[in-house]
């Protein structure tokens, strides 16, 4: 079943000199699919993610998530839709410093008016799955970057969303933490069957996906599928990246 369908999506930023960020992008993501979006800086990856997640509005084109168009929703319903159906993971975690880890995780549920008992059960389950039970009572400034990102994933997953968006989730992490986070995402994708869309610069991170879509100058450039081996997939990604321009070795180190 098609989870996300993007048809002829374009985005032009206004201003004195209008600039075209995306041109006629069409894309489809199946239920339970884990798709990576890659491309050089300024290619429009993040713009695409913002349009798909209804954080930004497209100039033309259509986005359907699970059959409904989030851009057609009223602002109020859109907020509800986001916190019920979608999950977000950001590069800079976006956790609230004033709350504990546990409180950060239940935040979307409190806004929904969920019962405390249910929330506690869900926190326990998700924390166990992500291995963060020991830090639940800690404050955000007391935990490491990897733990913070796993907390953010827990927050994004607590309401069992149909679709998870991740915007450079490994961008601020060292390679060990980055691997932990990607394995966590991959594991959730496998066990929960949540469709995921990952925007990244990191070829290693991208290699956890089922499929990677490349964008260049706002247009689809290429698309490759993961085959039998993750190692081979990683190599293929590196090849495409070098084709996109630049050298293989410096691309893999770009993080921002």
């Amino acid at each position, binding site marked *: 079943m098609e989870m996300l369908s993007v048809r002829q999506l374009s985005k032009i930023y206004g201003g004195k000199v209008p600039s075209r960020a995306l041109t006629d992008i069409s894309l489809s993501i199946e239920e339970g699919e884990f798709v990576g979006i890659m491309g050089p800086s300024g290619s429009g990856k993040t713009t695409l993610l913002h349009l798909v997640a209804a*954080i930004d509005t497209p100039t033309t084109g259509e986005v359907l998530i699970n059959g409904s168009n989030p851009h057609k929703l009223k602002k109020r319903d859109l907020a509800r839709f986001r*916190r019920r159906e*979608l999950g977000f993971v950001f590069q800079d975690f976006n956790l609230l410093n004033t709350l504990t880890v546990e409180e950060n995780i239940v935040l979307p549920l409190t806004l929904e008016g969920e019962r405390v008992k249910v929330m506690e059960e869900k926190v326990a389950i998700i924390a166990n799955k992500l291995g963060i039970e020991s830090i639940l009572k800690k*404050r*955000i400034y007391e935990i490491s970057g990897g733990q913070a990102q796993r907390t953010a994933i827990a927050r994004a997953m607590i309401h069992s969303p149909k679709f998870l968006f991740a915007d450079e989730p490994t961008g601020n992490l060292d390679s060990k933490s980055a691997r932990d986070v990607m394995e966590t995402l991959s594991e959730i994708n496998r066990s929960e069957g949540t469709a995921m869309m990952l925007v990244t610069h990191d070829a290693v991170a991208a290699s956890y996906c089922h499929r990677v879509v490349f964008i260049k100058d706002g247009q689809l450039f290429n698309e490759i599928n993961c085959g039998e081996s993750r190692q081979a997939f990683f190599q293929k990604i590196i090849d495409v990246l070098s084709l996109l321009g630049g050298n293989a070795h410096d691309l893999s180190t770009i993080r921002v």
Partner: protein
Amino acid sequence: MTFRQFAFNNVLRNKRTYAAYFLSSAFSVMVFFVYAVFAFHPDLANGKINNNISTGMHFAEGLIYVFSFFFVLYSMSAFLKTRKKEFGLMIMLGMTHTQLRKMVFLENVLIGFFATISGIVLGLVLSKLLLLASENFLQLDESLPFYMPIKAIMLALAAFIVLFVLISLFTVIILRANNLIDLIKGSSKPRTEPKSSVLLSWLALILLAGGYAVAMIVKGIFVVYAMIPVTLVVIIGTYFLFTQLSVYLIHKSRSKRSFFWRGTNMLFLSDLSYRMKDNARTFFMVAALSAVSFSAIGSLVGFKTMSTEVLLNENPFAFEYVSYEGNESVAPTHLEAIESALRAGKFDYARLQATLSEQTTDSGSKVTVVKASEYNAIAQAANEQTVQLSGDQAAMVYYANKVMGEKTEQKARSVRLSAGYELKPSTSISPTSLLIDDSYYVIADSLFDMLDRRETNVFYAFDVKGDYKKTLKIGRNLTEIFHGDNFRFQSLAYDAHQLTQGFGVVLFIGLFIGAVFFVAAGSFLYFRLYADLPDDKAKFASIMKLGLTDGELSKILTRQLLILFFAPIAVAIVHGAIALNSLQRLFGYSLMRESFLVLGTFVLIQVVYFLLIRTRYIRQVLDFIPNR
């Protein structure tokens, strides 16, 4: 680009950040200056108000200066806080500490200088308006004309240039203490959760409850003894209320999940504990100052109303004239002057008179007696009880002071006159119509006629029908014309007017200082709020991505602002109400109406302030969030 150009551009291109600081500085200069215009007003200085008041005014000026100092210092530190990161960057790029300090010092002195100038210019305009307003509002007699306040200008200039130089030096010293790492991390450094002590939280509760209980229980003169200790206890209690109890309560609510994890409570409360802790001292200051001004203004207004009412109650007649011995030659001309003035003014009036005859008692002291028929005529005119006397019956008349506490009743005392008559009064009464300095006796006409009448004073009353206030002009003219020592002339309208005048100036000062503190307190919060705005914007932008409706966002912000704006005021109102309640029991006179009027006005101003800032603040946060 030279260093100077750089510093200059830095100011110009950072307009918004500087503007807030500039405006708050100009504002405090303006307040100080406008007040100085009044304090140095030549008409007030030339003996129209008494010396105590003018000393009081200058003392208050000093208070405003101290307040301005903290206000400017505060806005300055809020201003520097927003620029910490910028300073860190400059030092990292190789700016020496000396250069940085030079830059900050120059900027501050320049801003200070221009703020002083604009504050004075704005103050000139405002003082003109206020002078007009004070005349009308306070029914001040002669208008306070606008004048060129050279003294006030010089004072404000000197005071604020000193202030800004001092504060600039001060900040330069503070700046040095900062490490590069702190500067670069700026305000983004995560902060530990505010702590509070259980013991001190309970102490706050106990102190407040105890203070209130004592204030509610004590009566009469004990209010005076209790006043200072109770005030101290309540002030300490208020301090701990804001610094400890508020944080403690929020912390406690955290562990109550059924409450904390509901709806927007989590977002609203977690932030609030930081803000309460940050603002605790401001809140305390605002609450204490507001409570003091509430009670001061409330009791002033109450005292004025009370004095006026007592005056009106005790003087039923528009004019009273008492002619003492030795005045026989002047009295007819004076009386004629009063009557002709009344006739010229086409007043319907009745002239009443009573002979006050002084008798010697057998113990050698003096006692005054009045003829019953004359007394009854006057009592009747004032709608008071008459006395029926015959033979050697008498009634004792005394003055009961109703101002402080209960009526002081006096028992009838008998007295034996040296002429041989014994006055045994059957009743003692305390009317308002015919009163002299001492108590006296009303006796039957027949008895009165038998007494020796060499030493007599005469009491005249002019009972004017209609509004007594219309006789103000006559009263004032006559008071000015009449000269001599052996009479007493009293015009009710003129006395009431004088009372209003006297209180008017004091009230004006009270209201002005109250308003200054009040507005300053609001501005404190305003600047505090805008220092937090960038954090709020970033925070809500990320929560909105997770799915937060506009309605929920404005609910969270509204509740936060409500608490920030009304917590100190609410506390001040409760304090003020309790204080006025005690004062009311001291005076034995209800201050309720006046208190509500004063408190209500302040609350109303604060509500308007709140609504304005709330709308602006929410809009600014929402505008920052992309794609809306």
